């Protein structure tokens, strides 16, 4: 993770070099730094840093979009005259081993449409999720594994 510090340093340096320490120039510096570290990665000992960086950005945007979608979904459910959903508590087996990755997954699950993480098993192998649309528990399980776990794994690997 020392590359992350280098990356932030590069962003600040870029902003200072362009003579304006403002938000857009910092953002620009972060992207330019990402490109530089993508090229320098093999030399500095982390050949996948650039890829992971862009995957993390993509994940952040995907997450913001899902947050918006979940707000719309809650609005539709609240304003519908009859309450027609079948909630369920589903166990999702985890392949993530990194603790930070599991925390990220649990947080993302809680803020995306229809799911809320309730508990984690003692050996950290299984996340218990409350879902509002549990007609098909298998589909809910697969959606979490496919949409979030795989993307997070790509960032942390």
């Amino acid at each position, binding site marked *: 993770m020392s590359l992350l510090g280098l990356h932030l340093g590069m962003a600040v340096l870029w902003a200072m070099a362009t003579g304006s*320490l403002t938000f857009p120039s910092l953002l620009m510096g972060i992207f330019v730094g990402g490109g530089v570290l993508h090229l320098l990665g093999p030399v500095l000992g982390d050949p996948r840093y650039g890829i992971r960086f862009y995957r993390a950005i993509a994940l952040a945007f995907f997450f913001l979009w899902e947050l918006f979608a979940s707000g719309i979904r809650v609005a539709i459910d609240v304003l519908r005259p009859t309450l027609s959903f*079948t909630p369920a508590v*589903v166990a999702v087996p985890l392949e993530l081993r990194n603790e930070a990755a599991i925390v990220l997954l649990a947080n993302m699950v809680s803020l995306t*449409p229809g799911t809320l993480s309730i508990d984690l*098993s003692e050996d950290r192998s299984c996340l218990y999720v409350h879902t509002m649309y549990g007609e098909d528990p298998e589909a809910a399980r697969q959606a979490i594994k496919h949409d979030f776990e795989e993307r997070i794994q790509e960032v942390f690997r």
Partner: protein
Amino acid sequence: MNWVELIAGVLLLAGAAFVLVSAIGVVRFPDVYMRMHAATKAGTLGAGLMLGAASIVFGELGITVRSFVVFFFLLLTAPVAAHVLGRAAYYAGVPRWERTKLDELAGRYDEADGTPGELGRPVQRGDDIPYP
């Protein structure tokens, strides 16, 4: 009228709509878990949109960063609070809605050592869950 005002006003109104929806959801949904769905998602989104409006209206780096920090903080804490509270509610045995279809967490708390202060967690995954 300029664009900054227009965008900020639209963000404010959207945030107000989501916040109102989450409050109605908290009253209307039938059990505590669904109420948490409404409060966590729509509430965080509504507050985030209003903070975004504030950062656009003032348009200075320090204020933008500050409102981003608040939003980031909300994104970090709202799910954690819901998680902790959901587990506590489950552990305390708050009833679920009668139409809850499936409960794979049922009976997974270790009943044997109910020592105070020791938090209850689901015991090791059993064989009945068809997953590796």
